[in-house]
C-alpha cells in the first residue's frame, strides 16, 4: 500500500489547538505544529499517553472540539480541501458520509433512549435518500457482517440490552454503513476485555479493507499499534515526537520519549526467583464457593447467583501468585473473600493454618494487620475528605503496641519509600492517578502485613506510570518479603511480576502452574486464546537494540 502520488486522503499541516481564554484563565496551547499525512486505505496510529492531545487531534478533524477549545492555526485537508474553513452545512456533509468516527465508552456511545434501528438508519436517511425498506435491508446485512446474532430482534431493542463488545460492533456497523473514506477510531477497545477487544479490532480491519477506507487509530496501547497499524505517530504533551513505519519505531525508537514508552512495556524477567520450597504455606483456599444475594421480591427471598464455585489455591510466604481471567471470572470476588470481606457459601479459607470463619476476636484483629488489600481505581479507593497522612495511617490505629509518635514516624518512612515524602497533608484530588496508587500501596504495606492482595493495581494507569508502580511494588515485596496475590487481566504484567499463575474463567480455575511453563505450553484452550489475544506480548519479544 504505497502512498498514492495524488493529494493524500488526510493531511495535517502545522495544526495548533488552544483553550480560548475564558473566565480569566489565559489561553493554553494543547497541541502544537502537528503535521502528518494519511493515504487512502492506509492504517495509521496516533499514540500517546493521557494528556498528550491525541484525542483532540482526532476530534479537530470533524471540528467536534469541546466547548472552549479552538483550532487556532494550521490546515486539515481532506483530499486537498481544508476542513477547518468549511461552513457548518458543508462540514455536516463531510461528517458521517466521508469521515466516520467510533468512540471509547461502549456504555454511552449509543443513545440509550432510541431503538438501534433508528440510530442505524439516522445517518443513511441524512446522507442517502434511500427508501426505508432499502435502509432496513442494508442495516440487517451490515449487522450480520459484524456477527450480531438475530439482527431483526437487535433492530427493535435498545443499546442497554447488549454487552460492551457487541455495542462497539453495532457502532462500527452504523458508521461503516455510510462507507466513509476515513474511519477515526478513538480508543475503540480500551474499555473492553482482551478477548472482545481482539474481535472488535479484527472486524474493524476487515470492514475497512472491504470498503478501502483508511483508519486513524487513536490509542495508548503499543500492542495494538504493533499488530494493526502500518504507520504510527507518537505524541507527548501536545508535541509530535516521532512518526514513521510502526515496526521501525517499535524496533529502534529514535526519540527518547518513544524509547521510554517502548521500554515501559511489561517484559518477562528472568531474575524472578520462586520462594524456597521450605517456605510455609501462608494461605490455603479449599473448594471456596461465593454467592451474591439476588434482589428480594416482596415475599420470596432473592435467587442468589453463584460467582465462584470450588476454587482451591495455596500461597506460600513471600511468593507472588497471579490470578488471571476476563472481567466477570470471579477473580476480584475471590480476592476479597481471601481477606474475609466476602462471606463464603461453601469451602474454607485459612491463614497461618487458622480458618477465617473460626477466628477469635484477637486472631481476627491480628489477621487485619497481617492481610491488606490494594484496590484498582485510585479515585474510588481513597477517602476524598481525608489527608494522605490519615489514609496511610488508618491500619496503624488498630495496632496497640505503637504510640502516636511511632505511628507518625512509621507513616513518614513508608511515604518516603513510595517517593511521596512531602505529600503528607495533601488531599487525594490534589494528586495524579499514579501518585494516588502509591498512597494505596503505602497504606497496604505500612502495617508490615504478611499477605497483600493487589486487585488490578495498575490497569487504570498509563503505560509509563504502570511500569513505575509495578517496580515499586516489586521492590517493597522484596524488602518486606510479604506474599502477594496479584489479580489482573493483563498477561504481560503477570510475566513481569509473578512466579506462579492461576487462570480463572466463569468462576472456576481452568489452569494453574509456574508462569514460564504455563506461558510456554498452555494446556487449557481458554489460556491459549488469552495468550494470543494479548498483543503487547509480541512487541516485548522483539529484539532490543
Amino acid at each position, binding site marked *: 500500500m504505497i502512498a498514492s502520488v495524488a493529494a493524500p486522503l488526510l493531511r495535517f499541516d502545522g495544526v495548533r489547538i488552544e483553550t480560548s481564554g475564558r473566565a480569566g484563565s489565559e489561553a493554553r496551547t494543547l497541541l502544537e505544529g502537528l503535521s502528518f499525512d494519511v493515504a487512502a486505505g492506509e492504517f495509521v496510529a496516533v499514540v500517546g499517553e493521557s494528556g498528550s492531545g491525541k484525542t483532540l487531534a482526532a476530534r479537530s478533524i470533524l471540528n467536534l472540539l469541546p466547548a472552549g477549545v479552538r483550532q487556532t492555526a494550521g490546515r486539515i485537508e481532506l483530499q486537498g480541501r481544508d476542513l477547518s474553513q468549511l461552513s457548518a452545512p458543508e462540514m455536516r456533509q*463531510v*461528517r458521517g*458520509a466521508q469521515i466516520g468516527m467510533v468512540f471509547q465508552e461502549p456504555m454511552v456511545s*449509543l443513545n440509550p433512549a432510541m431503538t438501534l434501528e433508528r440510530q442505524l438508519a439516522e*445517518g443513511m436517511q441524512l446522507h442517502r435518500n434511500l427508501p426505508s425498506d432499502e435502509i432496513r435491508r442494508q442495516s440487517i446485512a451490515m449487522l450480520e457482517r459484524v456477527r450480531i446474532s438475530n439482527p431483526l430482534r437487535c433492530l427493535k431493542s*435498545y443499546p*442497554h440490552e447488549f454487552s460492551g463488545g457487541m455495542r462497539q460492533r453495532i457502532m462500527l456497523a452504523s458508521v461503516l454503513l455510510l462507507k466513509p473514506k476515513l474511519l477515526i477510531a478513538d480508543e475503540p477497545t480500551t474499555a473492553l476485555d482482551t478477548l472482545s477487544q481482539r474481535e472488535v479490532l479484527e472486524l474493524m480491519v476487515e470492514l475497512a479493507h472491504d470498503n478501502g477506507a483508511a483508519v486513524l487509530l487513536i490509542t495508548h496501547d503499543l500492542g495494538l499499534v504493533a499488530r494493526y497499524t502500518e504507520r504510527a505517530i507518537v505524541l507527548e504533551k501536545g508535541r509530535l515526537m516521532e512518526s514513521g513505519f510502526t515496526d521501525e519505531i517499535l524496533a529502534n525508537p529514535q526519540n527518547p520519549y518513544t524509547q521510554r514508552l517502548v521500554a515501559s512495556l511489561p517484559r518477562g524477567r528472568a531474575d524472578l526467583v520462586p520462594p524456597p520450597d521450605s517456605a510455609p504455606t501462608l494461605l490455603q483456599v479449599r473448594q471456596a464457593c461465593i454467592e451474591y444475594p439476588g434482589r428480594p421480591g*416482596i415475599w420470596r427471598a432473592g435467587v442468589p447467583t453463584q460467582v465462584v464455585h470450588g476454587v482451591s489455591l495455596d500461597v506460600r510466604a513471600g511468593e507472588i501468585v497471579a490470578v488471571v481471567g476476563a472481567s466477570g471470572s470471579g477473580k476480584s470476588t475471590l480476592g476479597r473473600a481471601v481477606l474475609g470481606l466476602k462471606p463464603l457459601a461453601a469451602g474454607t479459607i485459612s491463614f497461618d493454618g487458622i480458618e477465617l470463619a473460626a477466628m477469635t476476636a484477637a486472631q481476627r484483629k491480628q489477621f487485619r494487620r497481617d492481610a491488606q488489600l490494594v484496590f484498582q481505581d485510585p479515585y474510588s479507593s481513597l477517602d476524598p475528605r481525608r489527608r494522605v497522612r490519615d489514609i496511610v495511617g488508618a491500619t496503624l490505629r488498630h495496632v496497640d503496641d505503637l504510640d502516636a509518635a511511632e505511628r507518625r514516624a512509621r507513616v513518614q518512612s513508608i511515604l518516603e519509600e513510595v517517593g511521596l515524602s512531602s505529600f503528607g497533608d495533601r488531599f487525594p484530588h490534589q494528586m495524579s492517578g499514579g501518585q494516588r496508587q502509591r498512597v494505596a500501596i503505602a497504606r497496604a504495606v505500612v502495617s508490615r502485613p504478611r499477605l497483600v492482595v493487589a486487585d488490578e493495581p495498575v490497569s487504570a494507569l498509563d503505560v509509563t506510570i504502570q511500569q513505575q508502580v509495578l517496580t515499586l511494588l516489586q521492590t517493597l515485596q522484596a524488602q518486606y518479603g510479604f506474599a502477594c496475590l496479584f489479580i489482573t487481566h493483563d498477561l504481560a504484567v503477570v510475566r513481569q511480576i509473578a512466579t506462579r499463575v492461576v487462570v480463572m474463567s466463569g468462576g472456576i480455575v481452568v489452569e494453574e502452574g509456574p508462569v514460564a511453563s504455563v506461558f510456554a505450553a498452555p494446556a487449557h484452550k481458554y489460556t491459549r486464546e488469552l495468550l494470543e489475544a494479548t498483543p503487547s506480548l509480541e512487541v516485548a519479544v522483539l529484539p532490543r537494540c
Partner: protein
Amino acid sequence: MLGYICKRLLLTLPTLLLVAVAVFLIIRLIPGDPAVVLLGEGADAASIAGVRADLGLDRPLPVQFFSWFGHALRGDLGRSIVSGEPVGASILQHFGITAAVVLVAVTFATLIAAAAGLIAAWRRNTAIDLAVVGAATVVLAVPSFWLGLVLLLLFGLKLGWLPFVGYVPFSESAGQAVLFLVLPVVTLTITESGVLTRMMRASSIDVLQLDYVTHARAKGLSERAVLVRHVFPNAFAPTLTLVGLTLGHLLGGIAVIETVFTLPGLGRLMVDSVLARDYPVVQGCLLFTAVVYVVVNLLVDLCYPIFDPRVTAR
C-alpha cells in the same frame, strides 16, 4: 405491566393505612369541639352532648375509626358535620378546581422548563444561560402568595382585566370560569417553572457531555436534530420524576394560592374544615390527597420508560 401496577398499589396500602390513622388521631387532638362550633356561643352542655351523640363522636375511638375507614374503602367518606353534604362529592367538586389549575400550570411550567433548561445548557456560560439561571433563581426566591397578591393587585384591582372574586363554576359560564383561573395558573406556573428549569439545565449539561451526543454530531446531524432527538429525551427523564413529585403534592391542594384568589379548591376546603373541626371532611381530604399522591407517582413511573427504556417496569 398489570402485575407491576398491582404490586405497586399493594405496597402503598400500609402507607395509606398509616396516613388514615395519623389523620384520624391528629384532627381529634386539636382543641375545640365540632359540636360547639355547630351550636355557636349559646350552646349549653345538654345540647352539646346531644350533637356529639348525633355525630357519633361519643363512641370509642377505635369503633369510630374502623366504621369510617371501612366505609372509606367502599368509597363512602361519610357526611360533613358543617354542611351535611356527602364528603366524597364535595371533595371531587373542589378537587376539580384544584386539578384544573395544577394540571395546566404544571404542564406549562414543564414546557417552559424543558425549553429554557435545554437552551441554557446548550449555550452554557453565555448571556442566555446567565439570564435563564438568574430568572430561575429569582423565581425560586419569590413567595408564591406574594406573587399572587401582586398579580391580583395589578391585573385584578388596578387594571381590572381579570375578575378575581366570587368564583363562577364552569357550569355557570365556561368563559368566566376560565378567566378566573388565569391568574392562579400564571402564579403557579411561574413558581413551579423555577425549580424545574434548574433541574432540566443540570441534567442537560450532563447529557451534552456524553459520547452519543458527539456521535450524533459525527453522523452529520444538525445541532437542532441532535438537541431534540438525542439530548432532550435523556435529559427530560430525571425532570419528569420531579414533575411527578410536584404534581403529587400540588394536587393535594394549593391552599395558599387558593386563599389569595378565593378559589374553592381542595386546599381551601382542607384549611376551612380543619379550622371548623369538620372531622369527616378533613379525614376524607387527606386520605384522598394521599391516594392522589400515590397514583400520580405511579403514573409518572409508568411513563418513565418512554424517556428512559433502561428502566423497564420490572
